[in-house]
């Protein structure tokens, strides 16, 4: 029988640093809740808003698969592998921090804020060679269907990471539903609602709610209003 966990939007951790407003689904920085440490290999789900002209200065990472998805505005990325790129709304960026990497992320726009999701997944092996990847997604490919945006396979759709994980985006009109088939044995799926109202099996979810489901091979996601959502399938044991 499927097991589930519900994280309502208003129960997330919150940090306001002036230029950065961040909601943490799981324990992060000064938000520590032993009941909210991770969902399987999914360790961080930060819902960040960065003020115009502000950003994260150069800082290190290691041994983590870091995925950034801009929801509004553009974010400039620079790293110690000499990558300089702008991640725009509609893009997805994946970075394997591995043995160690430095990077910065700035909102170069002087007038508009940036909203983006920063997602960290534990890697399936430590100390890999750092790598960076970024692609532009076609918005039409998730209209009333599930669009794969991440997988463990370099030759599959979307970006890839060092973990047996698959991410999908959906933008469903009211009344549309779809079945999701879990791809990896022992995997669970964490659903994060970007906007609107959806129902996972019998569980109603609203904007920015999170819902984990595991010990099942399939579930149904139905839009009860026009809705956008992100599905993150990850190993529950890793």
């Amino acid at each position, binding site marked *: 029988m499927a097991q589930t966990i519900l994280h309502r939007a208003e129960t997330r951790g919150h940090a306001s640093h002036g230029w950065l407003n961040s909601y943490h689904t799981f324990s*992060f920085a000064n938000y*520590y809740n032993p009941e909210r440490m991770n969902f399987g290999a999914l360790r*961080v789900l930060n819902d960040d808003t960065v003020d115009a002209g502000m950003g994260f200065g150069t800082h*290190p990472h290691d041994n*983590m698969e870091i995925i950034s998805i801009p929801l509004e505005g553009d974010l400039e990325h620079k790293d110690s592998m000499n990558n300089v790129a702008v991640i725009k709304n509609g893009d997805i960026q994946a970075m394997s921090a591995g043995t*160690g990497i430095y990077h910065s992320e700035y909102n170069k726009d002087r007038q508009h804020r940036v909203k983006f999701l920063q997602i960290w997944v534990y890697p399936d092996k430590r100390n890999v060679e750092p790598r960076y990847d970024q692609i532009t997604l076609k918005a039409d490919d998730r209209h009333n269907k599930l669009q794969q945006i991440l997988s463990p396979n370099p030759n599959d759709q979307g970006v890839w990471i060092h973990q047996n994980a698959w991410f999908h985006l959906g933008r469903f009109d009211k009344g549309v539903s779809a079945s999701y088939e879990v791809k990896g044995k022992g995997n669970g799926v964490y659903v994060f609602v970007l906007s609107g109202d959806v129902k996972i099996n019998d569980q109603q979810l609203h904007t920015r709610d999170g819902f984990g489901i595991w010990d099942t091979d399939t579930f149904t996601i139905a839009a009860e209003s026009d809705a956008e959502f992100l599905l993150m399938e990850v190993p529950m044991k890793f």
Partner: protein
Amino acid sequence: MMNKTQILVICRHAEILQTIIRLVNNNPEWECTGANTDQQAIDAFNGNAFDLVLLGSGIEPSSEENLVAFFRNSRPRISIVQHYGGGSGLLSAEIYQGLSQKTL
């Protein structure tokens, strides 16, 4: 004077090690000692009563196995935690979790 929680961090990446030390020491209740090499880690462990060991990046599997065995043989109740993220937002939670496991 308050006794600070003593934390040993082992990390092969020198700059990330310095970042982790700085971040740990930002908490006035914690005191961090860093080690780049196995020998530095063993020497530090022998000279201090650490409450927690954080294993950072770049430690070869054989070194990690040997170090963990040495720490456990020396102090069976020592809490040993894998650090992920490189001095990131996970650091505090990892330390809190490690310390809570130590008191079980």
